[in-house]
């Protein structure tokens, strides 16, 4: 099964909000610790190395694209 990038939550704002709120009150270092645990939990839940690799590729591509756009501006 390929990585799904269509919208899967009935209420996407709730999902985004849940993650934002989980970081409230955390220092940058604590937020990074929290993200590391969350990524591992979700990766295991997906349980499909190909999907995980696709997700990694997408995240890296977005990061690099954004960096290049910032440099051009």
């Amino acid at each position: 099964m390929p990585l799904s990038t269509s919208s899967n939550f009935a209420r996407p704002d709730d999902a985004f909000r849940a993650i934002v709120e989980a970081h409230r009150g955390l220092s940058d270092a604590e937020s990074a610790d929290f993200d590391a645990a969350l990524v591992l939990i979700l990766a295991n839940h997906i349980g499909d190395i190909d999907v995980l690799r696709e997700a990694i590729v997408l995240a890296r591509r977005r990061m690099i694209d954004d960096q290049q756009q910032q440099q051009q501006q």
Partner: protein
Amino acid sequence: MAQAKTQFGYRRHPDQDRPGPNPAEHAVVVVGAGPVGLSLAIDLAQRGQRVVLLDDADRIGEGSRAICFSKRSLEYWDRLGVGDRMVDKGVVWSVGRIFHGESQLYQFNLLPEDGHKRPAFINLQQYYAEAYLVDRISDLPGIDLRWRNKVTALEQRNDSVVLTIETPEGAYRLHTQYVIACDGARSSLRQMVGAEFAGQVFEDQFLIADVKMTAEFPTERWFWFDPPFHAGRSALLHRQPDDVWRIDLQLSRDADPVFEKKPENVRPRIARMLGHDKFEFEWISLYKFQCRRMDRFLHGRVIFAGDSAHQVSPFGARGANSGLEDAENLSWKLDRVLRGRSPASLLESYHVERSLAADENIRESTRSTDFMAPNTPQEARLRKAVLSLAKETEFGKRMVNGGRLSVPCSYDSPLSSPDADAWRGGPRPGCSMLDAPVGERAGEHAYLTDVFRKGGTDFALLSFSNRAAVEAPDGVKNIRIGGEDGLADSAGLAAKRYDAEPGSAYLLRPDGYVAARFRHPTGASIAAALSRAEGLN
């Protein structure tokens, strides 16, 4: 400090008296009398080859060094006639525990089922293993072991190799068809063929201390992340024979090796770990681990095996064990080539198969070492998350990497015939055979690995009985399970482990790897698989 356990004298050999232009000619010269070179020499000699084994020292190496020998290695040593001696002296273990801080994260059992002749692992000082192999060599007239014979030059010709060998009484030369370089991680033969040894050096330093003490720890592998006695780093504890314990402590990248190696500085570290200082040092060493390999294991007529060809960090016991797998992979092939029964191209499969193994071992040990010594703050953060999640989740425990222990590699090999039938389990072509209890006669217990090795190992056809069982081709040993004349499989474990139905058959290579398997074997299908595994097409 431990002294060398066994000292051997240099002895002049008639080869040294040959006139310069007319050196002695040999079939195989093995360079390096460590566990790999010794085992390879024995294997070749048992196959009827005459072997010259050279070593530049006059003694068995100091320090216990490699201590964990795998089930696979023990099965190989059974074939070489030294398995019982190794197991009788060694300490048997299969359970490992991983701790984080004060508490245990989880434990694992590397051989959680019965019905195997050999345990998952024994721990045994390398000097004992080498001494037993040297003893075995003295039973075999085919091996000429020459101490204090150092290869100083190597010249490859079309049909031979010329070695120049330095001895206490001067230099002499030998002609040989093949040279097997088992001369270790700092191989001088590797330099002589001009090969690179590329890979990764880990910056973290590890202190290895063998201490003698009486202790009540169980015979298990204990690994700590961030233990209270060694904050922020990792530690490993292993039992060896003679009340010797292997302790491995991770040090910082900038630790001063000269300072850290001094016994008076090691002592307080070990005392903190043990809670007392009633111990003697056997051996202290300080390492930076390296994971690297040669690009090609064959260089003309010079073949590399063991640490000379590939080097790994020790977490996972993949160094000596993979070297022994090299030896068992190479010896039957070289024997066939020397007898003209297979073309020299069969040796290329040694490079192919053992390269796959080297890559796997390097990948596994690199992952373990990176987990123990994270390279960046984010790697450290991910590791911290895994260790934390492991306290309450199964997936977290499985991600904790305190060393993944050596198991035989599976080969995607040109010698294997792909499955043509449907199988739900059992070892695929390219996998190592599995042991199982089989009865030779009623009431008598034997193991499949014993039956396989009896009378010397060549190809074997392992078949599960039906009335019209197919016969093995000439020169292939028949091992029949079940039926009136077959071996009893009273617990049904052999059939289960091989996913066998009546009529199923496995073609096993001389190194115990599966070459092909059949639900409905025919003379023609077996002959074709055999021919492929012999490198004949």
